[in-house]
């Protein structure tokens, strides 16, 4: 009898513990969360930060619970909210009462920083973001020319949620490597480095409508260069490509090649390996950049039978080599003459390879960089010519 009583008592205790410790006290339903999909940070004329969120709600999708918000022109509109504050964190929580829900940063897909906020300095922004307990460290950070708010409130044709469109573009860039994709953790690491690291961020802009048949809304548009944490300039697509080659991040994209006899060919890059060697003689650094590029032939005009004379491929290779080399040299020239700052990270490479010598030139590195000889050698291998070995015509 006593045994039985003991068993029953323990059963009740177990049930009691199970029921009382399930933490229903702090339960949050998904409808009660304002899930931030994208975030835009601007700095307005009154000297305050303005934050705009794109919020995912259950009613964003047709078929979801709740009343869907129909815009006047038809189609579902994703709610956006705006907050203003003297500091970023203040602005980030300014709209909380107006949303009436708990703001959840866990699913944030992209953070876009406006031009003015970038010029003001991105350190406070990155600091405030890194402090959020629920934020992911792999949130891509982008800069835009003009106001960041414009990007977020832009309506797209593919998806009601703008953030998803940008997220797809980012995922594609990781695979293609035409533009730098910089995550929150990486920019935070670069900003806290003490070794002349020049942070760069990708740039996203609204694309000017080329014609009606192209429904793209955004385009990745080169990159932005920072001095310490302040935006100093933008670089166009071609120079960005050279930067990606130097970093070894260029992966898969097509480039046209003009042959010597006037015919044209298109090559598709299939990976690029970059080796940077630095030599310091008498306190004067020299830099050697060695690129190994693999590519495949996409199309070619003119009578060319690659099976009969494989030397034709070598012609293609040397032309592609020259093209890559020109692109990289153009980027180096832009770094030395246009922006006059070492955004290529050459100083960082010297620090990693020759830490002791670097200590001596550390303070005047940015001036020294302008005269550092940088030699580029490129080696291209055209791996194959697709499914054909000679043109079909």
């Amino acid at each position, binding site marked *: 009898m006593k045994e039985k009583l003991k068993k029953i008592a323990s059963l009740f205790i177990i049930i009691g*513990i199970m029921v*009382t*410790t399930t*933490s229903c*006290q*702090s339960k949050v339903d998904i409808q009660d969360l304002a899930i931030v999909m994208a975030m835009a940070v601007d700095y307005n004329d009154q000297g305050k930060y303005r934050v705009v969120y794109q919020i995912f709600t259950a009613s964003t999708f047709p078929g979801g619970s709740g009343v869907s918000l129909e815009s006047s022109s038809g189609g579902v509109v994703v709610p956006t909210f705006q907050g203003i504050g003297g500091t970023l964190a203040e602005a980030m929580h300014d709209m909380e009462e107006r949303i009436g829900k708990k703001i959840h940063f*866990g699913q944030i897909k992209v953070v876009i920083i406006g031009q003015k906020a970038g010029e003001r300095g991105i350190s406070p922004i990155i600091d405030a973001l*890194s402090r959020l*307990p*629920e934020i*992911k*460290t*792999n949130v891509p950070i982008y800069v835009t020319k003009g106001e960041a708010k414009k990007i977020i409130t832009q309506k797209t044709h593919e998806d009601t949620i703008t953030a998803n469109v940008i*997220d*797809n573009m980012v*995922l594609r860039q*990781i*695979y293609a490597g035409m533009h730098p*994709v910089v*995550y929150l*953790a*990486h920019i*935070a*690491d*670069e900003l*806290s*480095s*003490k070794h002349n690291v020049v942070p760069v961020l990708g740039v996203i802009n609204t694309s000017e409508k080329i014609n009606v048949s192209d429904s793209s809304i955004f385009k990745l548009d080169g990159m932005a260069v920072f001095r310490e944490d302040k935006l100093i300039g933008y670089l166009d697509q071609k120079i960005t490509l050279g930067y990606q080659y130097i970093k070894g*991040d260029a992966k898969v994209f097509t480039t046209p090649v003009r042959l010597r006899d006037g015919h044209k060919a298109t090559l598709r890059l299939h990976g690029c390996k970059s080796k940077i060697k630095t030599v310091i003689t008498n306190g004067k650094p020299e830099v050697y950049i060695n690129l190994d590029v693999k590519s495949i032939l996409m199309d070619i005009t003119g009578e060319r039978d690659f099976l009969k004379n494989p030397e034709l491929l070598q012609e293609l290779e040397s032309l592609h080599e020259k093209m890559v080399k020109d692109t990289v040299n153009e980027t180096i020239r832009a770094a030395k003459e246009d922006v006059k700052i070492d955004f290529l990270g050459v100083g960082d*490479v010297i*620090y*990693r*390879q020759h*830490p*002791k010598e670097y*200590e001596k030139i550390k303070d005047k590195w940015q001036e020294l960089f302008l005269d550092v000889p940088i030699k580029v050698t490129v080696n291209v291998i055209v791996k194959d010519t697709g499914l054909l070995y000679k043109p079909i015509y």
Partner: protein
Amino acid sequence: MEEKISSYELFSVIFLVPYGSAVFFFNAAEAEQSSWLVILIYIIPGLLLQYIYISLYRNYPEETIINWMVDIFGRLLGGILAILYAVYFAYIAARVFRDFITIIKIVAGFSNSVIILNIVLLGTVVYGVSKGVENMCRLASSFFLILNMVAIILLLLFFSTPNIVHWHNLLPIFPKGIVKPVLKSWRLVTFPYGETIIATMLYSKVNNQNKIKRAAFAAIIVEGVMLAFISICYIIGLGANFASKANFPLMGTLRLIRIAGFLDRMDLFIIVILTVNAFIKIGMFMYCAVASTSQILGIKINGALVFTMGVIISVAAYYIAENFIQHLYIGLDFTPKYIHFPMQIFIPVLALIVSHFKKGSRKKKLA
């Protein structure tokens, strides 16, 4: 019935107890990108510490650190030291408990009153400890496998995510010479390696006495290699600058994982690792505190003693620091210098020396 553990169980406990919380922090942050090498170098002092503890144990087999102190320093001084050790184990349990509560609160976004978390976490630990050390050690040995499996899965996911691994972050190795960063990170001796002092309470329970040394040394080496590898992951994932500023680099590193655009947010794994580590670590320290108290008082370990210790630890966890930063500051500055160092290194070394001379004089008397 006397409790017995196998040498493999001893190995898992010695591995898991320091590893339990060391895995969450960027150890040897002073050495920046060379921290993993420093961790590897500090395996040697870690082995040395185990060697000291085991040599002490060989002089007084079948006994624990509490009895050694009384045997070596006499009833008065040894008794005080024994009480100090009991308090020390309880204090470390409280520190670890505070660590884990804060991490769980932050990682899981736990906004409930902490009392519930307290009951759930410490209630389990109290129950585990009251079931005896044999069961705790057996649990540790199976958790060892589970944790390693989880770690391997996470590492595979981490290394197969594109665009996050930056191997060049590991360079330069020791830019300002090897001596300075190694000396600066002396705290590594006390934490994580010094926490293996809990093994002094377990040696006498190992069934195969000849395998103690091998198991303990293997645990220290595996410990060092694992921690060094995790440190490498922090550096190549987050970068040494960011990792040394982040409170929880493990969380930051795992949140970098994103495969095929959807497989991300490995927070669940962190919580699994966290609760398992917390259970083993707090449980073992609490067992040591309970066992030493019972030996000092000359009573058997019973439920009331374990429960009282649980209450003491949970209350102490609140009052050891006002906020988490103060808690970390004490843990990095005060505790290693004035608590860990004397308890883990100074007193055992002194005891070894004294016992050596005592043994010599005893031999002379016999002759």
